[in-house]
């Protein structure tokens, strides 16, 4: 039996995978194309279709995630507009850097090293912050945000969560993230979320909600670009969305139950696993070592499965008000 040209087993795989990704996306505001594109490549889809379908899926999931976060009052539209405008300009500048490097023949090496380094750096910074918080002082991330908020360059802008920051600084942060996104060819969610949290002092839940709204806009633009050449497999996107729509509800609901410090620990684990996976994949490709490519795939999917399971477990533990049970202790950073 086939549904839209796909076997029932494959449909089940896509719906289940969508559920897992939706949970991560609803919780972190990132992780969509990062996981879908490699999965479609592994399943044998051409790279343009894998990227195009990944972007269309990210767009659909982020629409659902943004609506869900809006329901929880976790989206700051003013912040999203400033970030989107600044990032759009920055992405164009980042692309120019790539073209320049391409002309010198150094693009691949520099981009891959920068990607791995950036993922690892943000992951380690977040992990250190989560551990420091657990150590008891409880405000390791505050000093940087405090310093940023004390700079009074007009116009000063107020955001949700009682945050008041210079609009010029917010624009500059968006510009830098945009340059890095355009340079690395990624959505920028893994940079935007920590930049808003640690750099500007925006509460974690609002940072995630605003991040997802920004991803919706950039995802729509990316999907449109690839769809022009027919590089979006709609049945694949449809089945993935069927699962992710439910997962996004679970993930977004979990942000209201699980503490910010626990969010930081999971986020760091995802980034560090991603960093090792990208490095492993590149080394495997360059030196023709299949085991490294397999390790990369296992790391990406293993981390995604474990982290989404940890999110659901942590949420259930909070619902039961259980912090000391054997399984519940595992879910704290």
């Amino acid at each position: 039996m086939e549904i839209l040209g796909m076997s029932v087993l494959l449909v089940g795989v896509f719906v289940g995978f969508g559920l897992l990704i939706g949970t991560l996306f609803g919780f972190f505001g990132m992780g969509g194309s990062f996981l879908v594109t490699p999965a479609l490549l592994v399943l044998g889809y051409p790279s343009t279709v894998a990227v195009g379908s990944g972007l269309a899926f990210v767009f659909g999931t982020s629409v659902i995630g943004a609506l869900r976060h809006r329901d929880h009052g976790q989206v700051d539209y003013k912040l999203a507009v400033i970030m989107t405008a600044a990032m759009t300009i920055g992405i164009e500048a980042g692309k120019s850097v790539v073209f320049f490097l391409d002309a010198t023949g150094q693009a691949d090496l520099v981009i891959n090293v920068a990607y791995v380094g950036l993922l690892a750096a943000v992951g380690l910074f977040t992990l250190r912050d989560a551990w420091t918080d657990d150590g008891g002082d409880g405000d390791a991330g505050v000093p940087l945000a405090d310093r940023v908020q004390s700079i009074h360059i007009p116009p000063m802008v107020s955001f949700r969560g009682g945050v008041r920051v210079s609009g010029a600084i917010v624009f500059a942060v968006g510009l830098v993230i945009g340059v890095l996104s355009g340079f690395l060819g990624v959505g920028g969610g893994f940079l935007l979320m920590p930049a808003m949290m640690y750099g500007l002092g925006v509460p974690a839940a609002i940072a995630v909600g605003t991040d997802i709204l920004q991803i919706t806009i950039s995802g729509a633009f990316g999907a449109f670009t690839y769809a022009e050449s027919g590089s979006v497999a709609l049945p694949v996107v449809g089945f993935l969305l069927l699962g992710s729509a439910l997962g996004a509800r679970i993930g977004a609901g979990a942000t209201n139950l699980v503490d910010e410090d626990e969010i930081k620990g999971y986020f760091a684990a995802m980034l560090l696993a991603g960093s090792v996976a990208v490095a492993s994949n590149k080394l495997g490709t360059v030196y023709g070592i299949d085991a490294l490519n397999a390790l990369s795939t296992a790391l990406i999917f293993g981390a995604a499965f474990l982290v989404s399971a940890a999110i659901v477990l942590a949420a259930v533990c909070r619902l039961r008000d259980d912090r000391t049970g054997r399984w519940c202790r595992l879910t704290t950073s």
Partner: protein
Amino acid sequence: MFGLETLSGPAQAAATVGVVFLQALALYVGYGALTRYAGPTVLDALGGE
């Protein structure tokens, strides 16, 4: 698939993005209704009540 390939490039792209958007909205509304209907029971069960 879905007859979208008969459209020109930009029209096909707009239709594709539109289909994904409408499906996302439909799923949001559908799962929203399901959550309102079954959510409290599931949360009570998970919460051990």
